[in-house]
């Protein structure tokens, strides 16, 4: 079948096509050892001998539609998303940049509301927005407003967090209910409006991470399950660490309204996006104390141990269902709806 290759919306889904796009189109021409880590943030040392604290550096663009949704907006998302990418490598986030691509005709009041929201999110996360850029494009060349943020943070000396560090016997901890962000945004999408008593969970997680790292030196993996959902994050960990992950369906926190919306729309909540949740792999002897520390925080109240790291089948995620069956939980295949973040 001869057809011209073009970018499809599915290339932005966070699933396999996105991974392939990065692996084939970006990594080879730019190749270097830091890029090759392919973690949420690049981590590198500023000293020639690699000693001392390391810098974490990341960037992300936000194209969510609509700009304002229950529980958040593009501004809060742009700050929290980048803060969380830094936090997931164990970094203490410090400074962000913010770039705006604005469509001609955007009400100034909208821009102001977004900027105000970013200020509030930055204050909550304890970071500062220290540089930025603005571009305006003609009507039709952008959908209202796109925001890019980049961020830097410091990784304490000796701290090693990474997707390849899960070991057999480790506990898998989830910080709270899944699917809230995806369903909150979808419920307000044009042509798909439905009443869902659900708010986006968009939140900065660096405070939660700090509490976890203080509770145990044996936090081995941190991931924020955004596009592609919990299922995709767990599969990434299983693949990078070459281990199996066994989870229990009944232990996964899920809000009733998210559950109901997923049933109605035919979505599996395991694949629905989150913006204020993390999944952690922790040494088994420290799991309970990390869990207790998480539950004492605002964004970890509903935290739960959802499973454990097992030897077999390596690279796969298995789930025991509520009725006692077992199924394989693969990575997101295909796409959910585009422009969720």
């Amino acid at each position, binding site marked *: 079948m001869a057809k011209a290759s073009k970018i499809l919306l599915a290339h932005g889904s966070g699933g396999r096509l996105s991974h392939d796009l990065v692996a084939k189109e970006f990594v080879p021409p730019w190749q270097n050892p830091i890029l090759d880590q392919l973690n949420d943030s690049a981590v590198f040392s500023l000293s020639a001998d690699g000693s001392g604290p390391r810098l974490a550096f990341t960037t992300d663009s936000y194209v969510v539609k609509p700009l304002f949704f229950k529980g958040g907006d593009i501004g809060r998302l742009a700050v929290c998303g980048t803060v969380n990418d830094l936090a997931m490598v164990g970094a203490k986030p410090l400074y962000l940049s913010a770039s705006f691509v604005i469509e001609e005709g955007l009400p100034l009041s909208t821009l102001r509301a977004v900027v105000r929201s970013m200020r509030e999110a930055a204050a909550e996360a304890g970071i500062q927005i220290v540089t930025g850029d603005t571009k305006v494009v003609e009507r039709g060349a952008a959908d209202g407003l796109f925001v890019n943020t980049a961020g830097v943070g410091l990784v304490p000396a000796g701290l090693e967090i990474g997707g390849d560090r899960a070991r057999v016997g480790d506990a898998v901890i989830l910080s709270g209910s899944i699917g809230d962000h995806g369903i909150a945004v979808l419920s307000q999408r044009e042509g798909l409006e439905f009443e869902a008593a659900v708010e986006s969970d968009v939140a900065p997680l660096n405070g939660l991470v700090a509490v976890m790292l203080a509770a145990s030196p044996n936090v081995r993996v941190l991931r924020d399950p955004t596009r592609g959902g919990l299922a995709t994050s767990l599969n990434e960990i299983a693949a990078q660490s070459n281990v199996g992950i066994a989870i229990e369906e009944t232990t996964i926190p899920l809000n009733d309204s998210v559950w109901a919306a997923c049933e109605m729309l035919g979505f599996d909540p395991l694949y629905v996006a989150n913006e204020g949740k993390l999944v952690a792999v922790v040494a088994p002897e420290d799991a309970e104390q990390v869990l207790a520390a998480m539950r004492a925080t605002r964004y970890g109240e509903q935290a739960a141990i959802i499973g454990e790291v097992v030897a077999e089948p390596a690279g796969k995620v298995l789930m025991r*269902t509520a009725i*006692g069956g077992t*199924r394989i939980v693969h990575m997101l295949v295909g796409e959910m709806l585009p422009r969720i973040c």
Partner: protein
Amino acid sequence: MTMRYVQEFRDGAAAQGLVARIEAAASRPVNLMEVCGTHTVSVFRHGIRGLLPPPVNLLSGPGCPVCVTTNADIDKAIALAQQEGVTLATFGDMMKVPGSYQSLQQAKADGADVRVVYSPRDSVRLARDNPHRPVIFFAVGFETTAPTIAASLLEAQRLGVTNFYVFAVHKLIPPAMIALLESGEVRIDGFICPGHVSVIIGSRPYEPIAKRYGVPCVISGFEPLDVLQGIEMLLRQTAEELAEVEIQYSRGVRPEGNPLARELMYRVFEVSDAGWRGLGCIPGSGLKLRPEYRAFDAEQAFPVEPPPTKEHRGCLCGEVLRGVITPPECPLFAKACTPEKPIGPCMVSSEGTCAGWYQYGPRS
């Protein structure tokens, strides 16, 4: 995680009880066909297959509307979408189904105006909001969907929306079940009949299947306990050598179905022959617009001539839809054919058998 009324149907202890009864009743090998794609997904999603004793073999049937849509119909939808100034609206699952040469998604990337809607009423609204643009709804589905399309068409008529058209390739389930039995290609010892279709048609259209062909039918719901109980009821019938139509899904299905919905459906549509992927043309298995609604007929308003159809080389979707093979027996499965680059429609639809195996099962 609590959910009233649905969560009860996912209770672990009740499931174990049903599994024990299924084990006790499974004395000889039986092939049970779940006709409907939603059942197929439920079986996978809840890990039901692994709970069943070896004599009970589940076959997936032709009950995925996207999957049974022929290349010829997809090609025609694409040709309609490529008409200058036309908008084509359809359900999301149709976007990625490959036709002979391309999919609607590719046609959209090439510039055709193709929209995904969640309800046919949204396409009526689309037409109303864009009065100078013909909006064609590509209507795919079984008896469950057809009444909603009929209602949308009548709504468009009532609102005086004259730029709304329907390209309907609806299909009816019981004739396809009979075609499978007539072919004799696969032994079927019982049908798990579709719950949602039966909400509309009731239990009576399955009577000939039970009476004439001696195959038990149980209309089941979609929660895991529904499916397990449906299997248990079928096993009880086969053990007692009965062939009856029973309703497990009694909270949704009445024997007489929904006469109002059927009246709506047959006010707008009439029974016609229809082409099915894998099953060929089945007499009396489709729905076409009645002559008095010709003004809404996209094929009348936009005569298009799509290029000759081609089948995808090596694709065994037809065999999968007839229950002749399971997806891993297709040489393309999970190799050349994946949900990202599907070759056949059974890998595209969220209710497709191949997609179910790929998403929830072992991939080799």
